[in-house]
């Protein structure tokens, strides 16, 4: 049945913001029961983050929260209190995976570290997502998506093709990509641990640092240094074969002219203008050496044509070329519409709008996001299932435990 590949798994998510919740969402959209533990009162800090409808903050209307928490159940709980810890242990005792993104040592400090939990449930997989990991000299450093991204070689190299290194400071990628890379690596590693458990019968503790996850995205650039001896430079001139958004008549296109066949196709696309018909440009080395002449000439020619012509005809000619859209242009693009890349989800307080559907598409068990929970929406259901009476739940509420 659709979206149910993981419907026999129970996941407890004791996490806030992006890395842990995105990991939990991947399980939830695939059918796992994901119980999200939120701090009583304000809930997940992400609930306070924009975008909000009409820019008016409301804990049930954060677009980022709603997206990152689809298909989950919400339980408000403070595991740092004795009663809260008791509920937490009862939840974990029957869970397959516990996802958390607290600073290293925090779970231990409240008596809920891996050594304590594995006694309760030897099959438990504890997935800890942190900025820098559970060991090493930066273990206790404070992280943030900006910090982890900036420290990766990907961060040093963003944006690429810098003209003035003094003025153009390194940027992080749009969104929170270090945390996203931590989230998806953690989801994959948790599934590997599920396979491992099926063979061995026991769970384990997984350490996924967001910095290492985003640093991995510059693997080949790191290898270039140890193999070739070339430090990677972010300034223009290193990879002078295209590789940057270039303006055309009605927007921008993206292409490269590394292979000689690409260059021939590019010339043809631009109707073989004299400025490009020079022998010095025929071979890659010549194009790189004369980039300061070639690139302005190509730029000038591109301005004569629109995106539609350059991309459709360029692809037909064998050129690797594509359009540069804004998010609004992409969201309306017929190709993404034809693939149902977005899904409309209704939420009782936030309203009905379109969400990105899934990271990948699958034919038999597609990820199927359902609406995010309101704060503490499933308190009664979950506590009732654990055997807490209505009176006991009332007392927990009064004490601020839930």
């Amino acid at each position, binding site marked *: 049945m659709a979206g149910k590949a993981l419907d026999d798994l129970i996941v407890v998510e004791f996490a806030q913001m992006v890395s842990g919740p995105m990991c939990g969402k991947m399980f939830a959209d695939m059918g796992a029961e994901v119980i999200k533990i939120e701090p009583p009162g304000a809930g997940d800090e992400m609930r306070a983050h924009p*975008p*909000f409808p009409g820019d008016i903050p409301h804990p049930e209307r954060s677009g980022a929260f*709603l997206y990152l928490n689809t298909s989950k159940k919400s339980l408000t709980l403070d595991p740092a209190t004795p009663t809260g810890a008791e509920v937490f242990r009862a939840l974990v005792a029957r869970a397959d995976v516990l996802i958390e993104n607290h600073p290293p040592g925090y779970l231990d400090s409240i008596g809920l570290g*891996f050594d304590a939990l594995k006694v309760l449930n030897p099959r438990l997989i504890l997935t800890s997502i942190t900025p820098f990991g559970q060991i090493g000299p930066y273990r206790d*450093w*404070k992280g943030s998506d900006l910090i982890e991204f*900036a*420290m990766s*070689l990907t961060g*040093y190299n963003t*944006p690429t*093709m810098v003209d003035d*290194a003094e003025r153009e400071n390194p*940027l992080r*990628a*749009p*969104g929170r990509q270090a945390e996203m*890379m931590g989230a998806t690596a953690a*989801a*994959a590693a948790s599934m*590997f641990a*599920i*396979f*491992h458990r099926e*063979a061995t019968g026991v769970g*384990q503790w*997984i350490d996924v640092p967001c910095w290492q*996850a985003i*640093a991995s*995205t510059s693997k*080949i650039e*790191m290898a*270039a240094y140890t*193999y*070739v*001896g070339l430090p990677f430079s972010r300034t223009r001139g290193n990879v002078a074969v295209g*590789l940057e*958004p270039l*303006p055309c008549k009605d927007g*921008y296109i*993206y292409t490269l002219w590394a292979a000689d066949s690409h260059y021939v196709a590019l010339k043809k696309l631009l109707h073989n203008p004299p400025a490009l018909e020079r022998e010095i440009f025929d071979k890659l080395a010549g194009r790189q050496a004369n980039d300061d002449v070639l690139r302005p000439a190509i730029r000038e020619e591109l301005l004569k044509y629109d995106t539609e012509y350059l991309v459709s005809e360029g692809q037909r000619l064998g050129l690797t070329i*594509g*359009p*540069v859209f*804004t*998010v*609004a242009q*992409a969201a309306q693009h017929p*190709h*993404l519409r*034809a*693939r149902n890349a977005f899904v409309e989800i209704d939420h009782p307080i936030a309203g009905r*709008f*379109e969400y*990105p559907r*899934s*990271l990948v*598409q699958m*034919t*038999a068990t597609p990820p199927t996001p359902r609406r995010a929970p309101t704060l503490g929406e499933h308190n009664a259901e979950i506590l009732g299932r654990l055997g807490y009476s209505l009176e006991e739940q009332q007392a927990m509420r009064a004490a601020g435990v839930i």
Partner: protein
Amino acid sequence: MSRLPLEGIRVADFSWIINGPQVAQWLATMGAEVIKIESQVYIDIGRINPSGMADRIAGPNRSGYYHALNYGKKAITLNLATDKGRALADEIIRKSDLVLECFPTPAANKLGITYERVRAVKPDIVMVSVSLLGKTGLEPASWVGWGPMACCFVGMFDAQGYPGGPPRQTGGTWPDYAIASAVTFHILAALRHRNRTGEGQWIDASMGETVIGQMPEWYMDYAINGRDRRQRGNRDDRMAPHNTYPCAGEDKWIAIAVGSQSEWEALCRAMGNPAWTRDAKFADQYSRWRNSEELDSHLARWTRGHEHIALASELQRAGVAAGAVLDSVEIDADPHLWEWGFFRKINHREVGERILPNMPVRMSNVAELNYSMPPDLGQHNHEIFGGLLGLSDAEIANLMEQKVIY
């Protein structure tokens, strides 16, 4: 040696360059038998890219680009442009749990690596196609492209620029790695589904859609408010200071992110409480956020006098989230990455001692992932064609002569 998670899973891996090989590398390091099917007819560009060649000496087994993405695997050469080559590929598929490919759609069709054909060979196969914008849909489904082009299509590079400026490019080939982790998770779900039900399936993964799913602030703002968010630079929705600042030396930077009043006070103390920090404009988080440009210029004047790596340690000791922007030389020497186990020294028979990054996870019950040496071109031909498919040495020699095993 401890058991690896995916022992017993076999992968027929037709993928090349970056995103598919990174998926296969997740699976191989976790214990799957990954048979990387290459050919001299369409050699993996990673093997021949001149900018990765050890000591700039060309050779198919010398490329750092290939080594960084292909350890833990077995490599065979099989010419899929021949009928016999395709028949042998089918034999491998019949004995595999997973088929992986990342060709552009027209090339995959030509080589016969489509779900329709593969499923006919092995009905319960899980097949993964990783592509620019997906293999179904309209015209873009047939485009040739790579990671950065996916970012262009879905608005990522437009949003990457400096506020008000032209679109810019994120470093590396970032979406190739993003889709690899996402695909790996869903492959494992699909294999589990097959184990439980006997049903296989096709994972049609679009790099564009993975990137969309990783920038929810932009897409949800458009869906909710009809707003095109565009560029934000390093500006956060709430934090300030939140930027990269110049340090002593050429092109040296530090990132600083201040999220709370106590962190701000810690930063002020670290700077020696200069007079400007007492300005009412910077008194609380909202004021700092509103006046962040002025705040940034004050802060940059201070950071410029400091060495970036030392300053990051100093600020962290003071309780401020900070990190040095590290270049290739600095990241390779980083003590934390070495102690954590991010890097590994290899000693390769052709290129000698080199450093490669490991996978970014540690597992308490798996002492060491499968980090076997990146394979030479065709290194496992005898093992796979002889051992797995049962061909005799004479048959293998004959197929090599006919340029089928080639």
